[in-house]
């Protein structure tokens, strides 16, 4: 099962959104990979902070999520929510 999501947080998949993304991916049984849509780079494991941060995904970029496992749909929903959450960094 796969899904393409446009990243909303301005900083992209970085710092807090990245940590949240990785943590969420680790909470499900399904194996999830993430890869940038706009450039050709290999898909990486969504539960690795190093790999996810290393992609350098910026706000406005689209990513393809591929999930394989019983709770694939649930994990994609949860990850999409993380990627489209607007963060208030003004504080």
């Amino acid at each position, binding site marked *: 099962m796969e899904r393409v999501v446009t990243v909303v947080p301005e900083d992209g998949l970085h*710092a807090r959104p990245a*940590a949240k993304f990785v943590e969420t991916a680790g909470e499900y049984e399904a194996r999830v990979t993430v890869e940038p849509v706009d450039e050709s780079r290999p898909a990486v494991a969504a539960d690795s902070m190093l790999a996810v941060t290393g992609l350098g995904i910026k706000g406005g970029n689209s990513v393809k999520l591929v999930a394989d496992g019983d709770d694939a749909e649930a994990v994609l929903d949860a990850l999409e929510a993380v990627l489209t959450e607007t963060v208030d960094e003004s504080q």
Partner: protein
Amino acid sequence: MAKQLTGVGATPRSGVGTVIWYERESTVSADTAQEPSDDPAVEFERFETARNTAIEEVETERDRTRERVGDEEANVFEAHKQFLKDPQIESAVKTAVESGVVAENAVREAFAGPIKQFSAMDGMMAERADDLRDVRDRLIRILRGAERTDLSALPDGSVVFADLLTPSDTAQLSPESIAGVATVKGGRTSHAAIIARSLGIPAVVGVGDDLRTVTEGETVVVDGNGGTIIVGPDREAIKQYEAETTAAVTNSSVTTANSVPIEVAGNLGTPAEAPPAVKAGADGVGLFRTEFLFLDRDAPPTEDEQFEAYYEVCSQFADRCANNDGHVIIRTADIGGDKPIPYLSLDPEENGFLGARGIRLSLEEHTDLFETQLRALLRVAATDVGDSIAVMFPLVSTVEELAAAIDRVERVQTALDAEGVTARVPELGVMIETPGSVFLANAFAKRVDFLSIGTNDLVQYVLAAQRDLDRMDSYQDPLAPAVLRAIDHTTTAAENNDAWVGMCGEMAGDPTLTELLIGLGLSELSMSAVTIPEVKQAVKDTDTAAARELAETVLACETHTEVRAALEMEK
């Protein structure tokens, strides 16, 4: 001649102290000796145990930072936690221990690649390399069982010098004891700079290798405004910068340099604000706003409910007031149309800044509310903690209003006596905030025990510039000559009639104006808790004769610019 080093000012304040070089744990990891291991399984288990400890530490630091600094900085630790749990790191460590190295070296090898990779990337990615180093060094320290340098327990007046401070390092710093921070590397937006700023610690970052020429034990000024470090400052420079450091909390009452007592008190909006004010060294309460009791509810507060709230604040301050001759000044409800109250039908204009509000409402439409409040106040005044209580009326602008309010107090006392309820009329006072009250300050001072100048409203009414209008922002200036003359008129009236006079409002909490205010004749200054220590220090540094001279110079000024110039001269 003192040596001066330049960097980037990270916190706009300065401090003076003694250099302590903080060597981070990275020096630990500089050691590259390959110790052979006996058992890969044991080494991997050591790694796993260390990782669990590291995660616990990171969570503690995250919570601590969230509490002291804010969510955004706390999130850095969230990222660290995910790096610690990273499966790539885990498998790299596993491979390394299986090749026969000890866990410490396995960790170093596992992080080497990613650190190199991130360092080569630009901007924010490069910052992640610092995060990885921080995480790696934490793991190695735990594996070695090394004691962590305790940055939270440095002697008072320490200036921490370091190559670079990580978020974990900076989060440990205690603003009470640290006089400043300076680093070789780092920029204004580095985590360390942000955290230092939120904690109010003077900081200069990115000084460069020159910083290393300063040795431990030297006295330095950390000037976060100018972004400079002054090494071996002369007495003059120390004095100049010491005035800008965060003053230590003084719990005793203070006097000017020539022994004139000045009460430094706190402004409170709710009873919950009392403990922080006591902690900051407040001698008493110069303004307890009682509106909170009336807002956000469907019915007015009962007499007993109010009694509880006033009793609570008075008991928090009972010891302090007794020792420091302080007061707990409670202002009767200053309600107007700007804050909607469901059980009162108030109109933004009719009850606005120039409408029926404050004492006007208390004397006309809502005498019932006023009487209930007075009953509670007079009862608290007669309790074991009520000695220091004083009551003041807001927005009085005629003698008739004041006379009616005092009359009401006396009638309430008579009624309570008749009911056999223990009560006492405490000291009474008037807020000076309208031009009318300024002109009548003599007449008011004859009738009450004290006057208290509310500068925020005084500015608004004297300059006829509504506080909540953006376009009127430039008028909200307590140093406007018209406002200064109004303050002087008030203090003179109080003095001529043996009343005491205080000030509550933003102006009272500005330590750079303390000398002027004392010169203008104020004997009590009330402010939000945070500025109390600095104002107490400013009081101690003031000489009343010089202060009076300054006030006279300033009162002779006809423009704001001249006032500013006169105050600058004094510095």
